[in-house]
């Protein structure tokens, strides 16, 4: 059975990698992730300067997912070399996620990241809870285009653009893809808030955060399906992958690979193996021999 998948020309031994924000902010984190069997490692979003992020509580477990407002805690772009080096030590493709406050910052970040020789860049255009970054930096079509151009024009490696759900997700994807971005990563978390009714206040230190996990999975499937249908783009699906079925759903919808965040918490660090076992059984049951047979399969007439 052939589980390899090629995304923007990068060959992954199977379609499952981590989502940005999960562990890969330090060498230790990379090591722990590598042991889980992921096919590639996406770094924590790196910013120009190191960031402490918000004070705890930065996560709230929900029955059907997670709320988080980590606040882009990261060691800063200067850590990119050690991170990429460590990822390469495990023979895995390294995807460096970068987050700037404006197109200029994105360009500087890209330059520094490229020096570390990763396999791809991922532009965080969608963190919903860190003022100045993410959705704020990419708030207008113009900014989106400008960031895409600034990075793609200097990048010798594939550039992935990560978007959150919005009613304009097809349009936003189109802007990225027509300005040099090679693939879109769909989707980031949705803004959400949890209030402790007895305390009578939002619990996250930042007030609101990003909703992830099973709760947003149908929205992720919708987003991937729609963008694939309208643009035929290369897509990396993310949002609520917790088992082989949720993984396969995104592949059928058109994703060439998937990323996992909350699943690592909800299921545990054996999630990658669990998923791959399930995917193989599924392919056997359905008579598929290559992962590429599945990708976009839900669109056939």
């Amino acid at each position, binding site marked *: 059975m052939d589980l390899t998948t090629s995304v923007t020309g990068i060959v992954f031994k199977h379609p499952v990698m981590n989502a940005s924000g999960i*562990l890969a902010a330090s060498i230790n984190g990379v090591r722990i992730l590598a042991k889980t069997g992921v096919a590639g490692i996406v770094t924590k979003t790196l910013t120009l300067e190191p960031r402490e992020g918000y004070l705890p509580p930065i996560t709230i477990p929900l029955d059907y997912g997670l709320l988080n407002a980590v606040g882009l805690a990261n060691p800063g772009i200067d850590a990119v070399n050690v991170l990429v080096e460590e990822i390469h030590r495990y023979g895995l493709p390294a995807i460096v996620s970068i987050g700037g406050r404006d197109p200029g910052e994105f360009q500087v970040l890209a330059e520094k990241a490229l020096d570390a020789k990763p396999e791809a860049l991922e532009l965080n255009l969608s963190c919903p809870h860190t003022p100045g970054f993410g959705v704020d930096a990419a708030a207008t079509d113009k900014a989106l285009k400008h960031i895409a151009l600034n990075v793609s024009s200097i990048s010798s490696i594939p550039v992935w653009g990560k978007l959150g759900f919005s009613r304009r997700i097809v349009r936003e994807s189109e802007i990225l893809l027509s300005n040099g971005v090679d693939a879109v990563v769909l989707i980031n978390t949705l803004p959400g808030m949890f209030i402790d009714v*007895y305390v009578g206040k939002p619990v996250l230190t930042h007030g609101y955060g990003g909703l992830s996990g099973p709760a947003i999975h149908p929205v992720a499937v919708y987003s991937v399906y729609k963008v694939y249908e309208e643009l035929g783009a290369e897509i990396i699906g993310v949002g609520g992958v917790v088992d082989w079925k949720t993984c396969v759903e995104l592949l059928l919808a058109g994703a060439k690979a998937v990323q996992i965040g*909350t699943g690592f918490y909800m299921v545990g660090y054996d999630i990658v193996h669990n998923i791959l076992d399930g995917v193989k059984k599924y392919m056997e049951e359905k008579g598929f021999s290559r992962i590429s047979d599945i990708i976009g399969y839900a669109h056939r007439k």
Partner: protein
Amino acid sequence: MKTILKHSIRYYSIKLLSNNKISSNLYLLMFKTLDKPVTEPKPPQFIMLWVPGYEAIPMSVAGFNGENNTLSILVKPVGPTTKYLASMSCGSYLGMYGFLGREYIPPGNKFLFIAGGSGLAPILYYLKYLGCTPHKCHVLFGCWRRGEIGDAPRLISKLGGKPYTACLGECDYQGTILDAYTRINLEGYDAVIVSGPPEMIKNMLDKVNNTVNHYFILEETIKCGIGLCGKCSLGKLDKLLCIDGPLFNYEDTVRVYS
């Protein structure tokens, strides 16, 4: 690695029922969880305790009663959050999520617990959870001064453990907890569980008598508590305190401090 079961970690609103100062720097707080916990904590699990207006901080479960949904913690005020916490009055509402970390229930019939300062917290829950008797569970509790020992021995006795104190004043052993440890004959113990500040554990490592299994309850800064942020990763050990710990065996602990 252990699979964390879906839905087993939950957020709970809690209400402070009592707050007792048990020594010059230890407070025993008892909360009521306003919903019935879906799982029962097991030692040495911990919670992320949200102190509204301050931070969420990791606190070991020091006691739990599933029948009336009460949960106890033992707090040593060291900084703003713990100081405010120790000053809170009954009826206050707080939040928490848990139960976090991995349980470890040592097999055997006779245990030695070594606790320094607020490291006593998870040990108290061990005493309760294991159904201790003075024969089964010996507790060496150490602090710098007699005042820091306070009522702890009575608490330990009440939970079935046999207390033995070490401090620089009027204690069972007058000296540091480490010196007291080296004088204990470990024969007959099935396991030694050590819980205390990093310096204590670090200093103890090269005094360990490895004829008996030793386990160490470590501390590290916790941000998410659920294995995602990577903040609690442990030096050279490719593990996370919040999901692989807080208890580690001797070899792992040595790697952490190497």
